[in-house]
């Protein structure tokens, strides 16, 4: 496959001016054809290997980086789904029943995830105030089918004491499971931004339907 100057520069992760200078100095096997500098991909790959340079001619890397930017809170929430009437008298019980109800966690992993969520609660409560909690494990979890973060919204049957910072009883939990710390911080900060808005809290208190919830979040998110 033939590469032009721009491709070669991108594959070698170097500025075009460097490649141009190398061509002039005769250090790189590229040739002028018409008004373009071209080279054979295999030749240049071999050359890069001989000189210990990294060469990657693919656009996959770029896509991966862009992943997080196109990601939104709504997608994560949609992936996680919404659960209603979660039963339990205390933190441990609600977490356990919530995890049991989450459909996409394999049954073998359920125990582990519950334990990790509870461990995190023991450290400090994830009750962020205004009756909302965001339970999450301390370190990233990998779910089999999802290599992206998921947030499951759980409306509780009864309000429970979650040891939240403002001591208000919790009525809704957003269980956040993310594969990387970066994702985790990204969604945590977005969620926290939504929850700052009191009208949104009041909206949550009405225990809205799935679609209404997603729509609301979408509008808030667009205003960020």
């Amino acid at each position, binding site marked *: 496959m033939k590469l032009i100057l721009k491709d070669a520069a991108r594959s070698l992760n*170097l*500025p075009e*001016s*460097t490649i141009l*200078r*190398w*061509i*002039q*100095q*005769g*250090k*790189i*096997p590229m*040739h*002028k*054809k018409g008004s373009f500098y071209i080279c054979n991909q295999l*030749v240049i790959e071999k050359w890069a290997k*001989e*000189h*210990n*340079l990294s060469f990657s001619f693919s656009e996959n890397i770029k896509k991966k980086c862009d992943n997080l930017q196109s990601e939104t809170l709504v997608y994560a929430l949609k992936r996680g789904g919404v659960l209603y009437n979660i039963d339990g008298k205390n933190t441990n019980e609600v977490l356990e029943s919530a995890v049991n109800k989450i459909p996409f966690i394999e049954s073998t992993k359920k125990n582990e995830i519950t334990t990790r969520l509870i461990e995190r609660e023991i450290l400090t409560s994830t009750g962020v105030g205004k009756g909302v909690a965001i339970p999450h494990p301390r370190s990233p979890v990998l779910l089999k089918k999802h290599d992206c973060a998921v947030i499951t919204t759980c409306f509780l049957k009864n309000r429970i004491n979650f040891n939240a910072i403002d001591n208000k009883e919790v009525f809704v939990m957003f269980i956040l499971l993310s594969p990387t710390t970066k994702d985790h911080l990204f969604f945590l900060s977005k969620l926290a931004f939504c929850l700052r808005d009191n009208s949104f809290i009041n909206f949550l208190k009405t225990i809205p339907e799935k679609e209404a919830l997603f729509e609301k979040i979408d509008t808030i998110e667009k205003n960020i």
Partner: protein
Amino acid sequence: MKKVRSWRTPAKWSFFKFDDRLLLILIGAIVGISSGLAAIALNRSLISMLDMLHHYRHLWWAFILPGIGAALSSVFLEKIVKEGAGHGVPEVIYSVSRRGGLIRFRSSFSRLVSSCLTIGSGGSAGPEAPVVMSGAAIGSNIANFFSLNDRQRITLVGCGAAGAISSIFNAPIAGMVFTMEVILGEWSAVNIIPIAIASVAGTEISRILNGNQIAFQHDHFNVSLHDTLICIALAIVAALVSIILTRLLRQMHKVSKKVKTPLWIKAGIGGCVVGIMGFFMPVVLGEGYHFIHDMINGTFSTGILIAFIAVFAKIIATSFTLGWGGSGGIFAPGLVIGSLVGISFYRIIYMLWPQVSWMSEGCFALLGMAGVISGMLQAPLTGIFLIVEITGGYEVILPLILVSAISSSLCCFFEPASFYLKDLIEKGQLLRPRTDARVLADLSILELIETDCLSVKNNMLLRDFIKIFQNSKRNYFPVKDHKTGIFLGIINLDNVKPYLFDNIIYDVILVEQIMDKNTDIDTISLEDDLSGVLKLMDSKNLFSLPVVSNKKFMGMVSKATILNKYRTELMIQSTK
């Protein structure tokens, strides 16, 4: 039409595309032949000029001849071809190290004409350096003709130099070694092979046209152990003499620079001084090969005192010729001085220990030459191979190696840079491949600049700035004037951290109040030299510097990027 044009770009033929070694060998041979021809041309014209002027030598006004010759050569160089005086080798090294081997076409003949005028009329200089310059220029221009790149052109410049030296001395190995050791300064297989071919071609041309003659043929020498030992002393003497020669030449340049007369008058004065000296001591005139011949064969009959004085007379004559604007090299004078040193040395030790049977006088002359050449060029291998080849004297190889090695290391001790390189090193223009200076000179600021800095306007509130900085990957934010876009200063997050968490002042403070003003910080421009930039970073302990061009912010240059690119560059320069 396309086919017709393509013969001038052989580097694009698919046959040569992936491996240009064969191409370089072919073109190297052409270059070797051409530069060999140039060398023969100079040699022939020198001989005919000497013959022509021979009849006038004994006349009383003959002292003026070298003056006229030097003045004419200076006029030719200055007015007609518009090139500087000097012998040419530093110019070749400069073009190899800084200009990718580019040499002007006129250089391929200018030095030939001017040195022919200077030496033919009796000036004390050598024809070798001018021939090297011509050969190199021929190589460079042939490379240009075939649109080759810098690396290939440098190899061909080396081919030209090697062909020239090989041809003028009938010494192929000396040509190769001189090119690698002095001109290119690197030993890589990619270069050696074409240069070897060029040496062969150059030598062959000289053998066809001039016959296979060894320049200074001599009888058999018998070398014994005590001869080898006494050579250590000879090496020390030779080293001292070459230091004196080097220093005097440079000193003479400085003296002549202070004299405020046109260049050609200066050259004329220098030539006349040489002419007057030559009246009393003919050995100082011209290239002096004739005398070397006598000395090696032991037929140089002057007494010890005269020989001793002749050493210094030749040194002074050479510095008057070259220092005052004549044109030519120091190779031949170096050989003459060396053999005079050898002869004087022999006569002194013969006087001190007359009962010891020393090797013959000619042998000492030969070793003296090696000592002076190796010392002056600080190129021991060139000294060894040149002397072996031009004298055909392999039996003296042991003392020869000893003398060359000791002399060049002693000279290195007193004069850190050789005669050819001294000016270049002083100006910081000697950039040998794979050295720090070379890498830094190759990299330009444009290649290192990072443009992913988000710029902000000077009238922006701190609150708005906070939003921008949340989305940035960098710690530096250039501040522009909101109207003109002129670079006003830069915000360094490290310096403004305390204000960022104080949300009371978010709406009170403008960005321009927390920035470092451009008058207080160091900035660099796109044209700056990287070594200077690094010096600045080191002296002030900075890790990044903003690049400003035409009062506009262009980007940042950081030490981390420099290290990254520096390493890449170093890896690229290490060719097989």
